[in-house]
């Protein structure tokens, strides 16, 4: 049982209305630390160098996609095809800009990208919700490779391997100058990430969130309680796809460019990697995993372009063999020890 999901009805905590309403009252030490870190990241942002802001922005955007993967992971479903939604969200932004859609602001474009990815998930989900295990994974890979093959080869439409530019004219009506663009994007993504993560936090504590965990344990029992396993998976899948699209659209805006690789199987593999690396024990774990991943990749690549995959691969092997709960579980153990094991 994860530490963050506790009863909101603890009677001795009456009188702390807002935190209780937000559901944060009994959050675990690790969750509180995560929230604190997010607040700090918001406050220190103006002091941070541009490259670091960029790294964090992209990390948050990807973290949202990984969050989508984790939602399914809780039901023992591993999506090896989230690149589909990532690319759908990203390319929607690029297409909209290219084909002269009247709106050129980042915010509505990101919303549009998310919507498109959600529709894709709603369609794919109709089929994929019946599958389990590696067949779920294979089907998800098949769908993303279909998109990849179209993005790559229909070059007159998609720009082929060159891809397309994704540079909105402004964010939320603001037209930041070049030197504050990174900062503006950063805040945009940070606030969205925080809001969405909070939504996922509520989802994890909701009946649907628990249903996914129940499905993992015992599908038959779920049906014999009167709930449809397929519906639960479908709804979670659509939400997961929406997250993927949102992350993709945000990443596209931050990077300013989209390419077919976003839909390639390795892109999906990376999201699964980060999901396991960060852990599935909390809605904050994907963010943690994504940020650490981006940092490690950045530095490892600078050290030697031929060893960062070796390094990350080894880390993943170690995580799988020795720390299956990912980074987050290690963090939780630390937080527990720091509090003297009071909350457990």
């Amino acid at each position, binding site marked *: 049982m994860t530490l963050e999901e506790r009863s909101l009805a603890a009677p001795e905590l009456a009188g702390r209305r807002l935190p209780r309403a937000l559901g944060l009252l009994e959050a675990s030490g690790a969750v509180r630390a995560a929230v604190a870190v997010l607040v700090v990241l918001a406050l220190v942002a103006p002091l941070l160098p541009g490259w670091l802001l960029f790294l964090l922005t992209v990390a948050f955007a990807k973290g949202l996609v990984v969050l989508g993967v984790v939602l399914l992971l809780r039901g*023992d479903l*591993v999506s090896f095809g989230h690149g589909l939604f990532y690319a759908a969200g990203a390319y929607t932004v690029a297409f909209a800009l290219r084909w002269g859609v009247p709106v050129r602001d980042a915010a509505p474009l990101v919303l549009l990208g998310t919507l498109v990815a959600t529709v894709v998930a709603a369609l794919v989900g109709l*089929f994929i919700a*019946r*599958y*389990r*295990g*590696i*067949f*779920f*994974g*294979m*089907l998800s*890979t*098949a*769908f993303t*490779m*279909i998109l*990849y*093959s*179209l993005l*790559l*080869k*229909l070059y007159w439409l998609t720009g082929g391997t060159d891809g397309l530019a994704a540079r909105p004219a402004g964010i939320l009506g603001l037209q930041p100058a070049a030197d504050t663009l990174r900062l503006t994007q950063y805040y945009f993504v940070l606030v969205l990430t925080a809001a969405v993560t909070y939504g996922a936090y509520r989802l994890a504590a909701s009946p649907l969130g628990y249903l996914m965990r129940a499905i993992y344990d015992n*599908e038959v029992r779920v049906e014999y309680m009167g709930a449809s*396993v*397929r519906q639960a998976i479908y709804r979670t899948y659509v939400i997961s796809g929406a997250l993927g699209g949102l992350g993709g659209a945000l990443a596209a805006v931050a990077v300013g460019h989209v390419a077919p690789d976003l839909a390639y*199987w*390795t892109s999906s*593999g990376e999201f*699964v*990697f980060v999901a*396991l690396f960060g852990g599935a024990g909390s809605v904050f774990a994907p963010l943690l995993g994504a940020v650490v991943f981006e940092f490690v990749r950045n530095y490892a690549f600078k050290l030697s372009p*031929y*060893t*960062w*995959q*070796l390094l*990350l*691969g*080894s880390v*993943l*092997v170690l995580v*799988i*063999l020795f720390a*299956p709960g990912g980074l987050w579980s290690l963090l939780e153990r630390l937080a527990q020890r720091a509090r003297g094991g009071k909350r457990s």
Partner: protein
Amino acid sequence: MEQLLRVAVDGLSFASYLFLVSAGLTFIYGVMRILNVAHGSLYGLGAYMAAWLVLRLWPGGAPGALALPPVWSYGVLLLAALIIGLVVGPLLERVFIQRVVDRGEVIPLVLTFALFLMLEDIMKLIWGVNPLGADLPYAMLGAVSLAGVNYPVYPFLLTGVAVVAAAALWLIINRSRFGKLVIAVIADREVSRALGIDVPRIYTFAFTLGAVLAALGGAFSAPMISVVPGVSVEVIILAFAVTTIGGLGSIGGAAIGALLVGVLRAAAVHYVPELDLFVIYALMTAILLVKPRGLFGGVEVRRI
């Protein structure tokens, strides 16, 4: 007519190396219930080892320091495959994969993905990123004229290798003692264990056999291609498509799947080149949706 022949020949050549990789992949899945992403790496390692050996022994296409007859280069290709398959295969299986064999299907998949990432860099570290073009075995065979068009002969050799490998695989599974044990383990892991079969050892053998096949595919492909770091990444996703279409666990399915994918792609390349990748993955998706066990009825698909 000439177009059709071209499509058939191209398709056959494409199918041949795909079969070698897919047969190993599907066989490993059938025995261990593990989808080995690192299979692509075994292909790549085979290709790199073969290309490197050929280039060392026949630098610039001419006999080098050891003055070996060029015709031995075919043996070198086989040697490269065996070295990779018999060394890297058991190594991966014993050190890593065995530890997760009983943790379902997904964890081993992700572990093999991690191994794949590691091996990608290892290949870069050993052989660099410049393309290796060891085309001596390819060039030696020249070309043949069929229906008035010149076709290179080498791809037919590749097909021959695939056929021989298929026959050898059939013999091993159906006529050898190891094969009988493998069939028992495929049928029921627990009962086999209870009967005293050394299941872990069978796993190692099966994985190694699969690894040799993948390395064979890589080694014999090397003379035809430019061996670069991307080959492993590409081949594994194609192998997934082939094994899905044919049915996971079915070697006959891998053959049919490879032929289908090969011919389909060749046809697309000739008639609708923008869709040459699309048709493969569309077929994979269609099979998964309509006949998930694959054309040759592989393992039972987990779905409700």
